[in-house]
């Protein structure tokens, strides 16, 4: 069952009236969508308003979603259109997709992943989480670190990782899980907040 199939499974639940399943899709894609929108809109508060609007538009349009494209591709299009409409309504010019891609490439090349237009509080929170994850990664045994990097950054399947690391697939499964749990262990105290304030 691929990542796309998981999304489709959640989408079908939403289409049968399960709002909580949509909440899960929001949790999964909120950071990706915010990152996309912050390349079009500078003000972080506006970015969040547009992200919220895009999610609500997606929810309303979901009965017509038939899974011809991946859920995120569909959500991405809704996000971009919502951001463009927002900029036009504000009397600002919407960036073209080429501009977005150029900025994305630049961002990756310079390694500058944190935006400098966030609020100081948000920047600090983001930095703290980033540093915690990095510290936890450094503390991982080599084989766990390699397994989680190959999965999360390179996007390889368990089978591909098993082939690369020359070990059984069950070992890959276990290594990725142990790596995640080690990182999560350090993050939990930081994120120990009320359920409505979950990340």
């Amino acid at each position, binding site marked *: 069952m691929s990542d796309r*199939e998981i999304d489709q*499974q959640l989408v079908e639940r939403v*289409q*049968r*009236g399960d*709002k909580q399943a949509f909440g899960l899709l929001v949790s999964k894609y909120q950071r990706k969508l915010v990152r996309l929108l912050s390349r079009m809109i500078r003000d972080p508060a506006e970015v969040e308003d547009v*992200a919220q609007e895009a999610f609500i538009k997606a929810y309303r349009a979901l*009965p017509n979603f038939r899974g011809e494209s991946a859920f995120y591709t569909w959500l991405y299009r809704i996000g971009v259109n919502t951001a463009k409409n927002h900029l036009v309504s504000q009397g600002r010019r919407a960036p073209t997709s080429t501009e977005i891609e150029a900025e994305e490439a630049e961002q990756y090349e310079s390694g500058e992943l944190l935006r400098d237009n966030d609020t100081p509080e948000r920047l600090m929170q983001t930095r703290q989480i980033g540093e915690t994850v990095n510290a936890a990664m450094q503390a991982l045994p080599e084989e766990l670190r390699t397994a989680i990097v190959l999965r999360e950054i390179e996007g390889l399947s368990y089978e591909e990782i098993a082939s690369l690391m020359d070990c059984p697939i069950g070992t890959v*499964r276990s290594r990725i899980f142990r790596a995640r749990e080690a*990182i999560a262990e350090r993050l939990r105290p930081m994120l120990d907040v009320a359920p409505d304030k979950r990340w």
Partner: protein
Amino acid sequence: MMNERLSEWVDGELERDEGERAARAVLEQGASRETCELYWLIGDVMRGHAAASPDLGARVMAALEAEPTVLAPRPKKHQAAKTGAFDRWLPAAAAVAGVAVAAWMSFSLIVPAAPGGQEAPLAATIAARPAAAVAPEAAPTPVALSGDQAYYMAHQASAMGAPMVGVAQYIRTVGDEQAGNR
């Protein structure tokens, strides 16, 4: 739900039925959902996605509370699967009944009605017919046509609107014959 299973589900590495179970657990158990959200956060942070506002998800869900629940129309194939033997044989029975009615109507036209308004059975009617009646019918006796009738017959081919060629001519001829007989 064991967190190792959730880790596999997040990576899309579970089989379909196991994936269904994991999705149910994540939706129904707060702890499983929290773990799952944490795994997504770890992945996003590793890929360099800045953590979004912690209350964005809550804001979206609060806004959705005011929204009517979306429901997509169900595909009709589920209904087809539920049909019983009666529904499966109904079209065939209707076809047979149609053929039977057509055959009965054809026989009704062929077999003459019995005297007194009662219809005789087909076999009895055939047996009762005299040999002369069964013999090939003689050619119709020519009927003298009046002036108008002769004109209509001669110009029948020019008449508009006849849906079947020759039918109107035949009906007219038969009608004229019967008129002549009377």
